[in-house]
């Protein structure tokens, strides 16, 4: 035993060291730009069938124009780090739209070209930046819209990514339910504040059960980023503004849209009278101002928090129904950002002994239900961890007579097949998400269910790393845009359950903001071939894959040199032959002369 100890220690140390040595191995770069051909790996999200199958369709289409793509299904844990480090050449997956088209800033501004920022494609263009900066400061929505169309046009000329399609939203309800509102992103989504207060059952059932695949990860509206946490937040809390079916802003707790000063730096909200918290306390403008101050002070990470933190300078409540907000700069979506934040009660959240930070421990609602007080259509009633969350209707909600149901239950059911069965059996009335593509036909064919259809917020795109050759060549990007058949991609990638996006801001989702005359790249493989030929990407070795411009140019140069060398050889031979003939003729002539 004594003899074995140093060896044991050595082995142990070696084991530890080996784990540390593996760290640099794990951080090695995955992607190297191609050296000779137009041949690259393309990342797609492995768990998202649509991303994978769309990627396969794209690979086949690009093969026809001489570009070879290898589809690499990648897991989240590897995909995102590579995107952040720009360790890729081309990728295809979906990015989300929010309620207002702030993505036109996040996806195209140079300031967002950084790790974990808004864009993953290294796109930098000073002219585009200037237009975007101006658009962000324009409080007049019509003028801002024209500037956005300019951004869309410039983006289309430069093609930092190819927009493909918006996923479809199919929502299944038990047929006895009615009153829900169908709008972009579906009848049950955080954009849609109308469905839950308006829905009712023609069979007289008073509790509405929604199935989730997982619980909300937080009950704090300040920390809510996932769809399920936001759905909880919007049931229990209220916002100043909301959206109608066309995604236009409408007043919600406010009496109207906010008033702006002439310089656009002061906005004033007027609250409806008689608003109350679930514990009976009145909701005043003080709570509104407190909410925004809290967001900034705590650097909250909720959905709109960043926009608020960027713009909010100070605020005051001259009276109970008036909230005045001072912005650092005029901001085009100030109404949207401030109007979308869930208002929290000052008399509860200012007690830091009770709520120390914005992402508080979930189990607090069990030990102290006061933390769940909001002003929304439903009140927190009970929670069995891992099973269900029970909300009851708020009898003093500001829309009298609503909600029309007595109880709202969020129920955790892990698999889609179990959720569909539960809906058909009647244990559950709907589910939180769009029906998964594999189940859409079954849901439609079921006699107990009704399926709604609209456009979802998932925007599938084919993105390039604009700094990585050959994707730094705009003609390559344009050629690929022409070479992709978006209709076929929808058919193969999304089983037909998608809407093609012609521009960078889809009109199907944002009817007000979309560019009416976008610059598009209709499917034209001949044009794609022509562009690549003209730009010098030719297939030299006849394997069906085009070589890179530099390789072709180098090859051509070599060929020219060879030709020149040959020419020189021929000339040399010709010269020698001529000299020999002349000398020969001269000699013959001399001989003749002698004789």
């Amino acid at each position: 035993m004594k003899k074995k100890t140093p060896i044991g220690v050595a082995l142990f140390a070696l084991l530890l060291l080996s784990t540390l040595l593996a760290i640099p191995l794990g951080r090695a770069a995955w992607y190297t730009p191609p050296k000779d051909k137009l041949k690259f790996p393309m990342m797609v999200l492995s768990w998202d069938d649509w991303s994978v199958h769309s990627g396969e369709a794209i690979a086949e289409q690009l093969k026809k124009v001489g570009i070879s793509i290898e589809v690499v299904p990648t897991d989240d844990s590897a995909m995102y780090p590579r995107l952040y480090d720009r360790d890729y050449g081309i990728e295809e997956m979906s990015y989300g739209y929010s309620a207002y088209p702030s993505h036109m800033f996040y996806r195209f501004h140079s300031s967002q070209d950084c790790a974990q920022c808004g864009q993953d494609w290294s796109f930098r263009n000073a002219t585009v930046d200037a237009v975007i900066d101006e658009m962000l400061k324009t409080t007049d929505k019509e003028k801002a819209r024209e500037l956005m169309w300019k951004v869309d046009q410039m983006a289309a000329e430069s093609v930092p990514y190819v927009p493909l399609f918006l996923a479809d939203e199919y929502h299944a309800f038990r047929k006895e339910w009615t009153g829900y509102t169908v709008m972009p992103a579906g009848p049950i989504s955080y954009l849609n504040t109308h469905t839950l207060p308006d829905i009712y059952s023609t069979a007289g059932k008073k509790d509405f059960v929604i199935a989730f695949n997982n619980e909300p990860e937080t009950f704090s509206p300040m920390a809510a980023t996932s769809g399920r946490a936001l759905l909880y937040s919007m049931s229990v809390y209220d916002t100043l503004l909301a959206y109608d079916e066309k995604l236009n802003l409408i007043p919600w707790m406010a009496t109207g849209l906010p008033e702006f000063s002439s310089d656009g730096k002061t906005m004033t909200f007027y609250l409806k009278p008689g608003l109350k918290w679930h514990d009976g306390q009145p909701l005043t403008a003080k709570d509104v101002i407190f909410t925004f101050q809290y967001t900034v002070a705590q650097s909250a990470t909720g959905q709109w928090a960043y926009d608020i933190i960027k713009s909010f300078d100070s605020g005051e409540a001259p009276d109970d129904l008036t909230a005045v907000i001072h912005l650092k700069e005029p901001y085009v979506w100030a109404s949207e950002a401030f109007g979308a934040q869930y208002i929290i009660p000052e008399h509860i959240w200012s007690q830091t002994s009770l709520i120390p930070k914005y992402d508080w421990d979930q189990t607090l609602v069990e030990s102290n239900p006061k933390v769940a007080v909001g002003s929304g259509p439903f009140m927190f009633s009970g929670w069995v961890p891992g099973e269900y969350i029970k909300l009851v209707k708020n009898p003093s909600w500001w829309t009298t007579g609503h909600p029309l149901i007595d109880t709202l239950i969020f129920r955790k059911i892990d698999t889609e097949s179990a959720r569909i069965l539960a809906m058909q059996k009647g244990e559950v009335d709907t589910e939180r998400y769009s029906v998964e593509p594999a189940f859409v036909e079954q849901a439609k064919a079921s006699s107990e269910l009704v399926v709604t259809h609209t456009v979802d917020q998932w925007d599938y795109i084919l993105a390039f790393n604009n700094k990585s050759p050959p994707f730094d060549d705009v003609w390559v990007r344009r050629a690929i845009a022409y070479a992709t058949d978006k209709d076929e991609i929808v058919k193969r990638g999304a089983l037909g359950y998608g809407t093609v996006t012609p521009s960078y801001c889809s009109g199907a989702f944002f009817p007000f903001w979309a560019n009416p005359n976008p610059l598009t790249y209709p499917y034209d493989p001949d044009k794609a071939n022509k562009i690549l030929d003209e730009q010098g990407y030719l297939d030299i070795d006849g394997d069906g894959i085009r070589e890179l411009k530099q390789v072709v140019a180098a090859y051509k140069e070599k060929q020219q040199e060879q030709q020149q060398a040959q020419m020189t050889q021929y000339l040399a031979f010709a010269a020698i032959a001529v000299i020999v003939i002349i000398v020969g003729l001269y000699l013959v002539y001399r001989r003749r002369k002698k004789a």
Partner: protein
Amino acid sequence: MVMRDYLLKRGASALVTLGLAVVLNFFLFRIMPGDPTRTVVGDFRVAPEARKILIHQFGLDQPLWVQFLLYLQNLLMGNLGVSFQYRGTAVASIIFGRRLFNTFILMGSSIAVALIIGIVVGTIAAWKRESKFDVFTVIFSLVTYSMPVFWLGMLIILVFGYYLGSIPIAGTISVGLTYSNIFEYAADYLHHMTGPFVTLTLSFVGYYFIIMRDSILDVFTEDYMLTAKAKGLSDRKILFRHAMRNATLPMVSLIAVEVTYLFGGATMTETVFSWYGIGRLIYEAVVMADYPVLQGIFIVMAVLVITANFCADIAYAFLDPRIRY
């Protein structure tokens, strides 16, 4: 005297293994590729300053050895850290809550019942070797053992949950359940447990059955079995007092290994039946890169396995007088 030495040696080696597990547990998650801060700061619109604050909150900006010391310190105080995914909620409360209870009850009962059935039926089948009973039970075991667990579970849900309506489709208790005493609650809970319990028991029983049967057949070749028969003991006495006792020894080691399974082995079943348990937690934590939860689970599992193995060693020492070293 010899027994005490044996126990001390075993105990010391258990402690060393535990220490190793604690160290490896920490470093293992740090060498994985990928950014642990992704879950924490998942929203891309978070300002870089806010991200720095969050990273500091979770202590991810400290050098590695400092993080390790903090980790050890917290571990000794029973603080397993704060979850990345369930923001703000302590890992200890996530693990040592309803999930652990649900998984233990489900797995514990399924393994126990499967063990008992496997042992008893395995013994009888070995005795009645080559008979119709033997052939039928072997085929049944192989079929149920090879079936994918989730498929069996989904089938049970479809037939008994949807078409016949005799078991619920999901969950551990009924929604909005009101009960006046613990028995009503238990009845509802057990009703919900029927589906996953049957699925798991069916999937385990084949394994124990075959091993037990083989073990008994091995024992039949021993000399003392011939002696017992020669002594004129009844069939039942030979079978249950001599054969089964000796054949059960390998099962003891098996049970020690099953303890890990007790903790995290029912992931698929838990998903299919929406049974709120640890298996499902492990899966979610892996997908969401929730390192503190994974670390917490691994440490608890390590402690459990090491303890179970230690107990198995002691049990062996008592059961088998030949074991002494």
